[in-house]
Structure formats: structure tokens, C-alpha cells
């Protein structure tokens, strides 16, 4: 590699930043192996249904973080893509009786199309105005879901059949379904990692850092922003669809604004702009919801406290803190 010689004589200041390097890639490979091992071991320790919930939300948070951490775009309406995908997947599986993988694809494509339309509107504005447009559009999706017939209103779509994967493998057993969810999660993670570390990802980071400068170099920034918006919405849709199959349910909770807030929380607690942070963030938040359920409404307060403490003590999130200590991007 051409730059290795130059890297050697850059020694005086080279260690203070977090540049992408071979070193970092080697570390990332180890993290990937670690995650793969965890995916295999954890179902023997924790409940598969709990783990599947964590994985669905982790994928959702990863998709959200792609937009926020690498595109620099804060969406307050990601529940729209997650929830609509969830509805369409559930509807396709239940009413049309398609196999689960087709249902998931239908849900994911729905999210992609919704992301294309909403993204095209939202990226015309920047900063808080962008966020407000995404929120407003997501609220419209919520009211649509409340009124429309096929969503089942307050009841949602219940008793969605898990069905047979490819029409052959029954997903009724949680352990079998877990394998599928783990594979979807891992593939999603790998794709997001690749997007971040692609020529496209480089341009994205440049636009996030300094948009006017990227434009002055000849990049049509809005097209890149729209592209990452659609990618993020699509992957959020994949997470929502998978969730519908796992819980055999699509409901208003999935399109509610608090779902959009929760994914922001997961990303910030785990570490915005870190590749792996949202996974840990999702794990922490879902674990709190599950294991602190006995405290009832207090869970929200406890989450709020955790969030404030996180932002005050380590603004860069849990994984962001590790990255700083290791002096390597994670």
C-alpha cells in the first residue's frame, strides 16, 4: 500500500485522531467475529424471543445511525419506515398468505418507496427543519395507520403466521426463527459496514463534515443525501418486517412517534457515528424495558435518567467512549 511509508514518518501526531487505517480494519474484523460468536452462544444463555427483539431493534438503530452518524441527518420520523414495513409484511403474510421471506421483502420495499418520497421532500431543508419535516410526515403515517382499514386500527394486525421459510422450513420453533433473525441481522450489519466503508461512504462523510465544500468539489450533495436516506429507510423496513414475523404482530406502537424517539435514544446511548454502538444501545434499552418491567411506568423515568447521565458523562456514547480510549474508530 502506497501510504504505509508516509504513515511511518507521520509518527509525531499520528496517534491523536481516529483515522481509518489497516489497524482499525483488523480491529473491526475481530469485533465482527466477536459478534458472530455472541450470536451463536447467547441463545443458550438468554431467551431467544428477547434476543430476537434486541436484534430487530439493533438493526433498526444501525439503520438510523447510518443516516445520523454518517449522513449527518437527524430523522425524527424513522418509526414510519419501521412501522409501515411491519404492517405490510404482516398483512402480506396473513391476508395474502405469502411465505415469510416474501412478506419481509414486501415490507422492506414499502419502506424503501416511502423513504424515497419522504426523503425527497425532507432533504430540501437542513438542520432542525429537516428533522421537523420527517416528524410531520411520520405523524401523517401514524394517522393513516389509525384510520386505514387494512392496519386494523387500534387492534393492529394480530396472529400473523410465521409460516414456512421458502415454503419448506417451519418457523414455529423460536430457535429456528432465531437462526433466521440472526442471519438477517448479521447481513444487515455487514451491508451497513460496507456502505460506511465504500466510495459512497467517503463522499457521505465529506458532505456530513462540510456540505458547501463538497458541493464546490462538484458533488451533488442532495443526491447523496437522498441515497443514504433511502438506504436507511430500507434497512429500518427490514428490521420492522422481521419484527412483525417474530412477534406475529404489527401495531400502532410501531409507527408511533415514541418509536422514533426510542431509536434516537438507542443510537445516542450506544454511540452515534460509531459502527457498532447502536447494537449495544439497543441491547441496553431493550434489556431495561424487559427486566425493569416490574417498575411499570418508572421504566420511562429510569431510561430518561440513563439517557441524561450518558449524555453528560460520555457524549460520544458507550462505544464512542471505548473508541476514544482505544484511539481507534469502532
Amino acid at each position, binding site marked *: 500500500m502506497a501510504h504505509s511509508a508516509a504513515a511511518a*514518518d*507521520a509518527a509525531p501526531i499520528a496517534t491523536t*485522531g481516529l483515522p481509518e487505517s489497516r489497524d482499525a480494519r483488523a480491529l473491526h474484523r475481530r469485533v465482527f467475529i466477536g459478534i458472530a460468536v455472541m450470536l451463536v452462544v447467547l441463545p443458550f444463555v438468554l431467551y431467544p424471543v428477547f434476543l430476537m427483539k434486541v436484534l430487530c431493534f439493533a438493526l433498526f438503530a444501525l439503520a438510523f445511525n447510518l443516516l445520523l452518524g454518517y449522513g449527518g441527518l437527524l430523522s425524527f420520523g424513522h418509526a414510519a419506515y419501521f412501522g409501515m414495513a411491519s404492517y405490510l409484511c404482516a398483512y402480506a403474510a396473513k391476508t395474502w398468505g405469502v411465505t415469510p421471506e416474501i412478506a419481509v421483502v414486501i415490507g422492506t420495499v414499502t419502506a424503501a418507496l416511502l423513504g424515497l418520497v419522504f426523503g425527497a421532500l425532507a432533504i430540501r431543508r437542513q438542520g432542525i427543519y429537516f428533522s421537523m419535516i420527517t416528524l410531520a410526515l411520520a405523524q401523517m403515517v401514524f394517522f393513516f395507520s389509525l384510520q386505514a382499514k387494512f392496519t386494523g386500527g387500534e387492534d393492529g394486525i394480530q396472529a400473523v403466521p410465521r409460516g414456512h421459510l421458502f415454503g419448506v422450513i417451519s418457523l414455529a420453533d423460536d430457535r429456528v426463527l432465531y437462526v433466521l433473525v440472526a442471519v438477517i441481522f448479521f447481513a444487515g450489519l455487514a451491508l451497513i459496514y460496507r456502505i460506511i466503508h465504500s*466510495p459512497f461512504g467517503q*463522499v457521505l*462523510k465529506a458532505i456530513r463534515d462540510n456540505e458547501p465544500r*463538497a458541493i464546490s*468539489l462538484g458533488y451533488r450533495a442532495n443526491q447523496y443525501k437522498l441515497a443514504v436516506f433511502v438506504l436507511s429507510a430500507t434497512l429500518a423496513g427490514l428490521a420492522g418486517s422481521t419484527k412483525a414475523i417474530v412477534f406475529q404482530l404489527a401495531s400502532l406502537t410501531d409507527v408511533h412517534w415514541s418509536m422514533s424517539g426510542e431509536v434516537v435514544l438507542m443510537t445516542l446511548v450506544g454511540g452515534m457515528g460509531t459502527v457498532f454502538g447502536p447494537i449495544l444501545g439497543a441491547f441496553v434499552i431493550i434489556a431495561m424495558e424487559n427486566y425493569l418491567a416490574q417498575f411499570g411506568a418508572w421504566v420511562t423515568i429510569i431510561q430518561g435518567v440513563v439517557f441524561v447521565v450518558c449524555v453528560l458523562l460520555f457524549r460520544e456514547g458507550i462505544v464512542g467512549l471505548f473508541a476514544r480510549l482505544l484511539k481507534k474508530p469502532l
Partner: protein
Amino acid sequence: MEFKGFRAVNGVALQVKRGTIHALIGPNGAGKTTCFNLLTKFLTPTAGTIRYNGRDITRMKPADVARLGLVRSFQISAVFPHLTVKENVRIALQRRKRGDSFDFWRSETVLRQLNDEALALVEAVGLTSFSDIPAVELSYGRKRALEIATTLALEPEMLLLDEPMAGMGHEDVDRTAALIRRVSQNRTILMVEHNLSVVASLSDRITVLARGQVLAEGDYATVSKDPRVIEAYIGAGHG
């Protein structure tokens, strides 16, 4: 150009000849940066036309103007702070060599083939020992040098430099002036600069702006003797 009824630049018939260094000077608020923003399409003129190589670019988008080879720098240093020095230059090379990069499925290792060229440009501005650190950690003068290297990576036909020496120390000014002279071969440069000795030594032609209008135009000897120019500068509190 009008901002809510205020005419920032009015009737400026600016012509820049190919292959020359043209300086745009004038007291603060004269409309120099506005002119830049108009030429590079970051602002759209209320009236008038902008031609580049005989082509009307008045209604074009900023990114498309850049693709024609008309590239600007910014008054406040414009680097990508979280990319390394090498990556900063490479992102410009990436645009010139690959066009658009929507290939999110490909590994960024395909960009390694641009590393040699990027490092050559980094070396040309004397930043070799910083090539792998994030741009945010560079000193101000070095950020300006990096910005020039990034701009040069596009091999622009015409460069618009907005106060390239602003806030620089003495050594940096000399180094940057030498660099500008070196890159001006086969290129057209239009620059805004307050440092008059730099303007005097570098530019072939000077346009003086005041209150959004052209006050005088010519080479340094002519312009510096013009009584209206002297009055505008002293009147505005400049030496």
C-alpha cells in the same frame, strides 16, 4: 444581486481573461465575496448573466459549475475535519476520476489507486508528514494549504480563491504566494485578497470594488494611483 432590497452587487461587468491572475479588491462590504458566490452559483443573481468559456452558466447548479472546471475556495478554511489529510485530497480526486460515487456496495479499497496521486499533491503543499492525521488537527495555515491541494486535485481550469492569505503568518503568506504562482501555469485565477503586497506581486490585473460597483480596473500601478481608490480605502479606514 439584491438581498431584501439591498443591492449588494450592482452592474459589475467583470471580465477575467484566460491564463491570468486577476485580483478583486476593495474595502469590507464592497461585494467581493458576493461576486464569488454569484460566479460559483452559491447565489443566484437577480439580474444579469454569467458566462464561462462563452457558455451561459447563470442558471446552473453549484456542483455542475464545479464540474465545468470553475472551482472556488472559501474565506473560512474549508476542509473536511474528520477525514485525514490524504482523504481530503482524495475525495476531490475521486470526483474527478470516478465522477459520481454511488457504489455503496463496493469496498473503499478501490480508492487506494488514488493514494499515490493524493500523496503527491499533499507533498506539493508540504504536508507529507501530516498525511494520516485528521484535518481538524492542522494549524490554520496548514488547513489553507490542504484546501489548495484539494482544489488542485480537481485540475480546475479556473480557480476562485477567496482571501487565500487571510489570517496567515508571514512565512505562510510567502509559501502560499509561491504556490499560487506555481499553479497559475495554464490556469486562470480570480482571487479576493486584502494583503496588497501579495496582490501587487501576483496579479496581472486588478478590479477594485466599492459599494457593489466597479471603482477602477487595471494593473497595480494604474489602480494604486487612482484617486478614487485611495479615497475609498482611506475613507473606509484602511491603509
